[in-house]
């Protein structure tokens, strides 16, 4: 009960003051979050998240209410997207079944409370890893499955090639995201002015841009290409090269259950390592015979890596075989051959000039 109330307090802050104000109340909230953590950790009698998930027989995963490439229902109503696959990989690791997961669509406002209150086991919802969120909400970010950043889509007519030339521009934004804040930070830092035109949904934002209500549309870069393709004349618009913010997106878990935190963190790491080691869903079975010790540990033919996490030793094999390595997950959902058509860019492996780097399975 006490724990519930504390959590209530934390999220009430979050709801009532918004994230910006929350920085001011950070110290209080931090203390409370710590207390929450302690309570959760000391709740030894309470079952762990892993036990709960196993007992339920499925993983409950929070996703967006529909964001192309990240999580969106397809025509059959099946969830698809890179955030969705991140959840499926965890299910595959626990149950050896990538479909043992149920999705809870969450709005941006609901996402953290849903996790705090235990409604979901993990959150994989296009969520930017920031200090405030990590430290004061009783949450832990378990890694990054997509390095995003905020960018601009402009009308070619205004003849601009760089964001620094945008002084005085009218800019269409979607309300309630980190996007709004980044934009004003950027313009203030550069000593420029802008006229914000705020819309409620991304659909309306595009329509506003399309109708000429603004010269510029700003959003996370991962979405800009998709938004551009929605325009009646996509060739009349272009994406500027500037990235004005860092938006590392990744899965989130409740603070206080280290085992669960490790599971989610290492399932993602296994996918990234698998790509680095050339293990794919297609060759995962053949690779079981590999004599590369790194691959053997990854797939569980050698060592007891799984047991250390409370998982079956072959969890890596199941993850890669059933969901694929990171590259496959990327290409399938957001890569160049998808409607989003995003190049790997900084999301390429560190060995390929990107920053996608996972600690070793050892």
């Amino acid at each position: 009960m006490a724990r519930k109330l504390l959590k209530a307090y934390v999220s009430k802050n979050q709801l009532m003051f918004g994230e910006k104000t929350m920085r001011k109340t950070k110290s209080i909230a931090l203390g409370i979050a710590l207390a929450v953590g302690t309570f959760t950790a000391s709740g030894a009698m309470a079952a762990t998240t892993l036990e709960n998930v196993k007992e339920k027989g499925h993983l409950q995963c929070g996703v967006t209410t529909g964001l192309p490439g990240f999580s969106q229902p397809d025509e059959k109503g099946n969830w698809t997207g890179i955030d969705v696959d991140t959840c499926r990989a965890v299910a595959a690791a626990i149950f050896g079944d990538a479909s043992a997961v149920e999705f809870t669509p969450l709005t941006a406002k609901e996402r953290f409370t849903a996790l705090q209150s235990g409604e979901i086991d993990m959150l994989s919802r296009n969520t930017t890893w920031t200090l405030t969120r990590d430290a004061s909400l009783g949450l832990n970010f378990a890694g990054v499955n997509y390095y995003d950043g905020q960018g601009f889509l402009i009308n070619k007519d205004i003849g601009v090639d760089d964001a620094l030339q945008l002084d005085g521009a009218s800019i269409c934004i979607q309300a309630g995201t980190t996007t709004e804040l980044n934009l004003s930070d950027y313009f203030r830092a550069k000593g420029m002015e802008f006229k914000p035109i705020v819309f409620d949904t991304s659909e309306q934002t595009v329509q506003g841009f399309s109708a000429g209500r603004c010269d510029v549309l700003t959003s996370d870069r991962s979405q800009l290409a998709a938004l551009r393709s929605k325009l009646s004349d996509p060739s009349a618009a272009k994406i500027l090269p500037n990235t004005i913010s860092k938006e590392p997106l990744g899965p989130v878990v409740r603070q206080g259950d280290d085992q669960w935190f490790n599971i989610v963190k290492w399932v993602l790491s296994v996918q990234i390592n698998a790509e680095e080691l050339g293990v794919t869903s297609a060759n995962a079975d053949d690779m079981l015979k590999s004599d590369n010790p790194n691959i053997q540990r990854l797939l569980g033919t050698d060592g007891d890596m799984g047991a250390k996490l409370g998982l079956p030793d072959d969890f890596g094999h199941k993850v890669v075989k059933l969901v694929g390595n990171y590259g496959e997950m990327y290409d399938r959902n957001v890569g160049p051959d998808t409607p989003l058509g995003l190049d790997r860019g900084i999301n390429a492996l560190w060995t390929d000039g990107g920053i996608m780097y996972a600690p070793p399975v050892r």
Partner: protein
Amino acid sequence: MAESTMKPPKKALSPVKWMREHLFSTWYNALLTLAVGYLLVTSVGPLLNWLLFEANFQGQDASDCTGAGACWLFISQRLNFFIYGFYPDELQWRVDAMFLLLAIAFVPQFIERFPGRKWLGIFGMTGLPIIGYFLIPGGTFGLEVVESTKWGGLMLTLILAYIGILASLPIGILLALGRRSEMPIIRGLSVVFIEVWRAVPLITVLFMASVMLPLFLPEGVNFEKLARALIGITLWQSAYMAEVIRGGLQAIPRGQYEAADALGLGYWRKMGLVILPQALKMVIPGIVNTFISLFKDTTLVLIIGLFDVLGTVQSTVTDPAWQNVAIEGYVFVAFCFWVFCFGISRYSQNLERKLDTGHKT
């Protein structure tokens, strides 16, 4: 008698005369007629072209939407999702069965003289929800469980609206009676309840139900989000309903209360047999109005991540594989809502006519 064979004189007009009388009676009426006619001719044609003649109905994927008109292919491909949400395919017969029962119970209400339609209507308001209570979630009678998180689309819209409507009526009646009660505590509580809920927008109620409530519930008590939303919608709607019904109660002349008292009916029978039947009949238009607005207000659940029919459409129109299908999506949703809201409104008109005993007190 002689009068009985006499008929009122008929007022038959030839089309030309009719037009002259109704459309071109004065120069400004004529102008108006021409202007409206011009608008109709210029807008109806393109609209029909877009909706039907140049629309695309068949094909496999987005590339088959080549015509200039609407891309209904997008809707037809996702129809299953828009109607059932994430409800598993092989269990959708359960939802179909409920749709069928709903039709059996309510379609006859539009057919004058359909045998036993009154009983079908009563079944629709009692048996039907009970069957649905067991059939849709499963878990009993060997039915496989389908969690409420998997319900969605039109089915969810109907569940929300139907339960909201059905439950808010009796609660609203009790609140209205409470507000007119002579017992100060009951009256006070009713007034507070009604005024508090009525003063809050539904969107806030839903948000509280989805975000705040779970945190204040004792550990271990975990309501599903849908249940919380339903309770919120029902209580909010009851407050409105109570005020509509109170209007009806106030319009009943005092003599009716006194006559019922003098017959020794006692409070509940007085209300149930004499006052409420008249009061409710009197406020049918108001009740139906709140029903219709509730039906439409259920779309607000999409802000708490429940996928009603609008939610399912909204979550998929952003699919980058399809170009600009948002209009088709919203037209489809509008059509769904129009069908049901128009149905409710027609039904209420039928009901009003049927209950009309000709004369007021």
